[in-house]
């Protein structure tokens, strides 16, 4: 009797996990294929920092929730938490010059799907060098 109940619970849990897992990965595929971002930069007026502008574009149908974007350069790190609807968002980061030149700059994008699957995407490192 107990063994039958346990086997039923096991089958239900296994099936539910597979269904939810497939749903999550399908959504992951849709969202990643409809997400893009570009970076542009300009030197700020006081020349003590670099103002880096991150343009995030999302063309998916639903809102992309639990999305965080972190820009890291040496000791500098700033995180923006977003619920991204279709369209684009411009994020501005002001990086101190010493961090920008001494270390590589990279962007980390983290998404959590229903709290079950967590995805983290780290961009290639960008080296900022001064022009003599």
């Amino acid at each position: 009797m107990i063994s039958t109940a346990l086997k039923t619970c096991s089958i239900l849990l296994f099936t539910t996990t597979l269904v939810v897992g497939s749903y999550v990965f399908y959504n992951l595929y849709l969202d990643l294929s409809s997400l893009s971002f570009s970076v542009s930069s300009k030197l700020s007026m006081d020349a003590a920092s670099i103002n880096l502008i991150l343009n995030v574009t999302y063309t998916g149908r639903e809102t992309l929730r639990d999305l965080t974007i972190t820009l890291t350069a040496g000791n500098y790190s700033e995180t923006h938490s977003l619920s991204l609807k279709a369209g684009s968002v411009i994020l501005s980061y002001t990086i101190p010059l010493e961090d920008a030149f001494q270390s590589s700059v990279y962007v980390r994008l983290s998404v959590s799907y229903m709290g079950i699957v967590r995805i983290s995407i780290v961009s290639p490192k960008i080296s900022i060098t001064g022009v003599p």
Partner: protein
Amino acid sequence: MLKYRSSVEGWFSKSGLTRKILVGVLTGCLNYIVYYLIPLLAIRQIMIPKAVGSLTVLDMVSGMELFNVWVLLGLILLSVATSILSGSIVGVVIGASIPVVMIAYLMSLFSVLTLEYLGYRIDVDVTYILILLSISVALWSIAKVFKYVESLQ
């Protein structure tokens, strides 16, 4: 006559033991395919390309050999022990623990999948999915032990 009967019984028990070992080895090979080879091939061929489109490097999975002698040996030993001790609670418990051990092993390997695609590093954390799968497998194993205990009553 008595001596002859005794030697015949001994031969039969030896034969029985050989059969049990053979069954154990075959079951071990089957377990290797089910719990190691199929998940590894599935992760290599199905999950990742669907998740990220085309793929250039898959760090962890590409480094793993399809033929892992230690995993195969471990599974064969456990299966042989299960086969020899079948009919006793120890055999049932060992047999029931094999899927749980294998899921735990796979969990330690694949809880975070790390990929590289066009210079982008992608980490996919599937710990919770694996935990839920291992709970369902553990429930199934406990059910097998309960079934054995119920059959004794």
